């Protein structure tokens, strides 16, 4: 079981591959999964909606990495320091294994030639990655590992066999105007989270597609209430860099300071001020040394300013908050074991497509933990999928069926209108008074509208070939919004990033996870935290 995926003959207008492992998504998690699977003997195809190397939230940005030297005291501090922020929903065992895996894989990046900076003491600093550089390297390493990459090839639906196990996926090649099918023994979903086309940096390919496909095959989601972080950017621009706004002063139109406003621990004050009018920022608290470090560490942060003639350190500029959804939330596909398997046989999840509740609980401050999780969960999912594929063996060609539903099947209703549907979903998830500041009545009202949209869209005609990717994106955004708000309604407290105006404090009795699932009927169900399960088992 080695070598490359085999290209089969196929009917006109489509290509077909036979693989052991199919990876959907070519960001950090997807490329780590593909390399890991190939290193464990699998023939791998990786399909990306865009271009593996530029696609996704990491490629366009710079990201911190939760890289901690293996000193027990440092590791303990790194884990303990995050627990309160995450609402005590992390799992120590998963945090520890994520730190181990991230350390090992970051060091491999160095071996592969990633140009880590060296500090004044001659020490290589490995807790930050430049997205373009990192993802260019990951594409190169994926190819070197024998992975077959399909670019501009969004997956539209999973294939399942008679027993309900996942058996591949089917999609479109946008630049070839044809279709692809990959028959595979296991599939890794690494399609990222859902940022609802908010134009937060690099995220417009991240529309929750993997959640929808997985849910159609019967997978469950979890922690979807932790899905409402907003990132600061110049009002006109796309570049979000929360870290740098730590040196900002935020002001109203008249120049007076917005009370309590801060990038960290005061973003809600910015959101409330934005509902009243314009808010301005100026990075006036950065000294010359910090300014220089910012310039060299994140050149793209300065593009919007340099190209409009604004000096962000000495001049104020209008800012906005762009929804990051589950890209920087912690909700995603529920994983059921150490290999990042989902509840569906043959289906694995990694990166932002998977829940990050195990390492982050209900809050992630920045890219750092998500980046560590992408490396680690990608590595584990790739290996898990390769091992699963080997056990599945060279079974005779299975009878498979297509699992896709909404926008793919003729229902005889109204024509599917992707752009209109996407806007309608944005109208429910962008407003701060619905999503940032949640409350039962407002969530309930929003859910009624979202459910009605689902009822109409799922009874619509199949989308036209030229529209089908957009239609599936809009449907995935809609499904994601419904899991988010249903989960938000099920958590009657404020914890992590989930804040309820009607339940403003954390309730100790609710230290559990919330599982969600379903498409026509969305359901939620509480699930015990590992600590509680262990305590009960010991009684």
């Amino acid at each position, binding site marked *: 079981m080695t070598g490359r995926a085999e290209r089969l003959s196929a009917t006109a207008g489509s290509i077909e591959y036979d693989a052991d492992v199919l990876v959907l998504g070519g960001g950090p998690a997807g490329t780590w999964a593909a390399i890991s699977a190939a290193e464990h003997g699998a023939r791998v195809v990786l399909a990306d909606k865009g*271009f593996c190397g530029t696609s996704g939230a990491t490629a366009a940005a710079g990201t911190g990495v939760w890289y901690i030297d293996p000193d027990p005291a440092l590791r303990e501090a790194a884990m303990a320091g995050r627990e309160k922020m995450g609402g005590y929903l992390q799992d120590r065992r998963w945090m520890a294994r994520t730190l181990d895996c991230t350390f090992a894989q970051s060091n491999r990046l160095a071996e592969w030639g990633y140009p880590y*900076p060296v*500090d004044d003491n001659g020490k290589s600093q490995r807790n*930050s990655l430049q997205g373009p550089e990192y993802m260019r390297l990951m594409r190169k390493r994926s190819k070197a590992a024998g992975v077959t990459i399909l670019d501009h090839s969004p997956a539209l639906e999973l294939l399942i066999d008679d027993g309900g196990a996942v058996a591949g996926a089917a999609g479109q090649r946008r*630049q070839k105007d044809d279709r692809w099918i990959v028959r595979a023994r296991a599939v890794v979903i690494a399609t990222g989270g859902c940022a609802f086309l908010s134009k937060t940096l690099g995220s*417009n390919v991240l529309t929750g597609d993997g959640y929808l496909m997985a849910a159609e095959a019967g997978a469950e989601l979890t922690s979807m209430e932790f899905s409402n972080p907003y990132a600061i950017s110049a009002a*006109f621009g796309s*570049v979000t860099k929360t870290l740098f706004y730590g040196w900002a002063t935020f002001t109203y139109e008249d120049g007076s300071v917005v009370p309590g406003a801060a990038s960290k621990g005061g973003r809600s004050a910015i959101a409330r001020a934005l509902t009243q009018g314009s808010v301005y920022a100026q990075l006036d608290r950065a000294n010359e040394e910090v300014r220089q470090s910012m310039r060299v560490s*994140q050149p793209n942060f300065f*593009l919007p300013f340099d190209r409009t003639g604004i000096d962000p350190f000495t001049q104020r500029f209008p800012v906005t908050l762009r929804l990051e959804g589950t890209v920087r939330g912690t909700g995603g596909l529920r994983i059921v074991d150490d290999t990042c398997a989902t509840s569906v046989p043959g289906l694995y999840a990694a990166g932002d497509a998977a829940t990050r509740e195990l390492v982050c609980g209900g809050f992630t401050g920045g890219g750092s933990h998500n980046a560590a999780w992408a490396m680690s969960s990608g590595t584990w999912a790739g290996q898990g999928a390769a091992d699963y594929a080997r056990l599945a063996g060279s079974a005779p060609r299975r009878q498979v069926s297509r699992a896709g539903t909404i926008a793919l099947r003729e229902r005889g209703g109204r024509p599917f209108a992707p752009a209109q549907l996407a806007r309608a979903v944005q109208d429910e998830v962008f407003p701060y008074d619905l999503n940032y500041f949640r409350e039962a009545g407002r969530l309930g009202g929003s859910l009624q509208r979202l459910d009605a949209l689902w009822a109409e869209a799922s009874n619509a005609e199949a989308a036209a070939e030229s529209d089908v990717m957009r239609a599936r994106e809009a449907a995935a955004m809609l499904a994601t919004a419904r899991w988010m708000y249903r989960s938000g309604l099920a958590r009657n407290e404020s914890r992590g990033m989930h804040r309820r105006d009607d339940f403003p404090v954390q309730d100790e009795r609710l230290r559990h996870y919330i599982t969600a699932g379903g498409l026509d009927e969305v359901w939620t169900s509480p699930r015990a935290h590992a600590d509680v399960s262990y305590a009960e088992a010991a009684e």
Partner: protein
Amino acid sequence: MIEVIDAERCTSCDICVNVCPTNVFDKTDGIPVIARQGDCQTCFLCELYCPEDALFVSPFADAAQSVDVVALKQQALLGSYRRAVGWTDETRELRSIDRSYRLFGH
């Protein structure tokens, strides 16, 4: 959003068509065209990958802008991002100049 493919500099290598994550460009018999500007997510990556510094992404994410290419060239703004991240021969040393470790924990 992407505003400029400079016909003077573009060599029709089509790299931008391949690398754009949102498939904004189309190949033609000559130089590529910006076929779906509204799909541009203003990530600046096409600029970074253009070996000829022929592209310009305006920082305005939500609205098209009229852009003066002559002025951009005079201000050396074409290719400014590529130089800043060290993806040119002259600036290679910048690839490892990340100082984020000095900023974390603020």
